[in-house]
């Protein structure tokens, strides 16, 4: 024993505890230099283009279409033709088989998609590989199964497809959001025109190759890339029957206004400012992991991110100390490195927005903490940040930052926690940490939010409805409820 102790004491301590680089290979992805719009099963040469870059290196990845009104019109026309000439009349069991094929091909090509997602969006490969891709495939698999069972979903109603769905998705989970939108739309017999986010078009464009392999009839899915102008053209198009939008509350409101009186169906999945509430009887270490996952997952580019941490006063100090210590272990850097916890900020524009809001927090008097962290020279980066000494009125406690920035606030009683948590125009998600079962249910009942995670955070599943209260939008995605936006019901 004494011998052993001596040996251990004499072993030289390593000078540095850094991880060796473990980059995922990029070979698996073969990009074209230039992509058109995918309309009626064909690549259509665009009139206008822009270059999409990698946010972690700023290197250009490909030239893609800046979709024009004419492109949108052609895509809607193709979708209408496909709807009228076969797809809507196809037996549900046959639609199902196409979607099962898509799910399977995504599983088969998952590494390729994961690498491209991290390359174009900046998220850690660990997340694109273990979250985005498995969930995207699972969504298609889940909704495939519904396609021939729709009459069982809504008792005493006769479901029919809505028609052509215009779908506008964000840049935080590009392929997963595509799956959330396209899966249920197709299962219900609609055809779609999808506009990917301006900064992350590539996995959607690669998805067109999955459609080719699945032999999906032309025009059932059309993809037009571009910025907000392309989206606005899609919203405006008279032959679109339904708009599904995921993005900021500001744009969501603009779309709702734009569609006022048009009779077009609309679902909105908008911003959030989720409260993550930690009681003094919670399992502290688990709570810390949940807090970190809640706000630093995907660089905080998550509409349901737990960006407002409410800590019961009696555990404020130990919890914040544990949290800060945990932050020092987060590895920020190359999204393609398998050890990376926090990747690149999605765009320079988003980085500017985060910087401005963080500056406002400092200016308003909050105390900032950022762990020591070496950031790559090129690309868009932001150090995981915690603000303490935050007042409810500060912008960082009110506005959605959509970045790796946490505001810590405190409360004394459960009633006060409820009051503060609900004091926001948003209502997408909430987190509750306590070991007391009755309190979990009591809190869950009172949160004005569409998703409540108790003793966990940021969990998603195709069977689980997701969507907001209040200004976080309306309509649900996922589960049986996620079918309803894509169906009309005949009398």
């Amino acid at each position: 024993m004494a011998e052993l102790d001596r040996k251990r004491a004499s072993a030289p301590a390593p000078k540095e505890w850094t991880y060796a680089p473990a980059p995922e290979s990029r070979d698996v992805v073969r990009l074209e230099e230039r992509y058109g719009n995918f309309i009626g099963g064909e690549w259509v040469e665009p009139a206008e283009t822009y270059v999409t870059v990698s946010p972690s290196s700023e290197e250009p990845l490909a030239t893609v279409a800046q979709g024009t009104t004419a492109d949108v019109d052609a895509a809607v026309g193709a979708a209408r033709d496909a709807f009228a000439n076969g797809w809507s009349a196809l037996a549900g069991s046959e639609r199902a088989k196409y979607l099962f094929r898509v799910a399977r091909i995504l599983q088969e090509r998952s590494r390729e998609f994961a690498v491209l997602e991290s390359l174009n969006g900046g998220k850690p490969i660990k997340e694109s590989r273990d979250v985005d891709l498995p969930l995207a495939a699972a969504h298609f698999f889940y909704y495939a199964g519904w396609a021939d069972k729709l009459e069982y979903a809504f008792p005493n109603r006769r479901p029919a497809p809505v028609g052509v769905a215009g779908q506008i998705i964000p840049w935080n989970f590009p392929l997963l959001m595509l799956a959330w939108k396209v899966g249920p739309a197709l299962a219900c017999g609609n055809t779609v025109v999808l506009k990917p986010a301006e900064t992350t078009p590539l996995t959607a464009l690669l998805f067109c190759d999955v459609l080719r392999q699945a032999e999906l009839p032309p025009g059932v899915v059309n993809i037009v890339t571009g910025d907000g102008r392309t989206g606005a053209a899609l919203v405006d198009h008279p032959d679109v029957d339904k708009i599904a939008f995921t993005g900021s509350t500001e744009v969501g409101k603009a779309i709702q206004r734009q569609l006022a009186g048009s009779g077009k169906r609309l679902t909105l999945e908008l911003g959030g400012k989720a409260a993550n509430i930690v009681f003094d009887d919670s399992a502290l270490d688990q709570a810390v992991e949940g807090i970190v996952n809640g706000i630093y997952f995907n660089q905080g580019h998550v509409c349901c991110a737990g960006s407002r941490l409410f800590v019961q006063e009696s555990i404020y100090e130990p919890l914040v100390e544990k949290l800060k210590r945990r932050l020092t272990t987060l590895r920020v850097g190359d999204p393609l490195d398998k050890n990376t916890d926090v990747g690149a900020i999605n765009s320079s524009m988003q980085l500017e927005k985060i910087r401005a809001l963080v500056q406002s927090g400092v200016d308003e008097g909050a105390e900032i903490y950022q762990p020591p962290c070496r950031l790559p020279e090129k690309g868009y980066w932001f150090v995981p940040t915690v603000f303490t000494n935050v007042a409810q009125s500060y912008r960082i406690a009110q506005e959605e930052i959509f970045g790796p920035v946490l505001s810590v606030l405190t409360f004394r009683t459960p009633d006060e926690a409820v009051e503060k948590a609900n004091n926001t125009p948003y209502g997408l998600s909430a987190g509750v940490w306590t070991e007391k079962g009755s309190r979990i249910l009591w809190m869950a009942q009172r949160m004005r939010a569409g998703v409540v995670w108790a003793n966990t955070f940021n969990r998603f599943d195709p069977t689980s409805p997701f969507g907001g209260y209040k200004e976080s939008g309306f309509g649900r995605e996922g589960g049986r409820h996620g079918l309803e936006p894509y169906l009309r019901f005949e009398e």
Partner: protein
Amino acid sequence: MSRLPVKKTYKLFVGGAFPRSESGRTYEAEGQNVARASRKDVRDAVRAARAAQPGWAAATAYNRGQVLYRLAEMIETRAAAFAELCGGREEVDRAIDRIVWYAGWADKLPQVLGGTNPVAGPYFNFTIPEPTGVVAVLAPDEPPLLGLVTRLLPPVVGGNAVVAVASETRPLAAIELAEAIATSDVPGGVVNLLTGFRRELGPVLASHMDVNALDVCGSDGERPELERLAAENVKRIVHGRPDVQSPWEIAGFLELKTVWHPIGT
């Protein structure tokens, strides 16, 4: 000498009380002077609704069902008076039966509209419907009683509080209904009924930041403008129809909440 009847003053129904319009205005409808609600009356009604809503939502579903059933009882006992103010006894009967039908939904909604979700992981996950909050209803002009009941009951049975604008041309049935509500056990503020001009009151309700949903049933040409105003706080828009009966009517005024909890030892 024959006896001179005591005539009724037709007033608003806000927070369980019967105030005149704060504006002091009336308009003539069906041969009576009826209160012409103002912007301020709308705000008072929304405040009353907001105050009453949490308590109504927190009542047990069994209790809400009984309270609404009680409303049907109250209308039945004064059915003759109601028949004078609408399309007649048949409309009254249908309105009563519709209330009874909806009353029975109070404790069945979560099982039909919600459920547990088989997520791929060690979590218990369930979805429940909850009221969206304060709902504004523009009731149709016709039928004056059944139309209002059809639009009122779905949000109320779901646990919402309502501010409704009555039929503009035939508001007396709505006022009679307010009196029946006041003598049932519906808590004050859960249903607020305003009489007046829809064109004047609709935009105030549509743009009110503390209203969560808007049923535009009774609107016509002004619908695009109402929907545009409603976007400011992402209101849920319901295109209600004057004569329809379905649990899916209730669903339009409900939110779905999904709760996750890990399963473990």
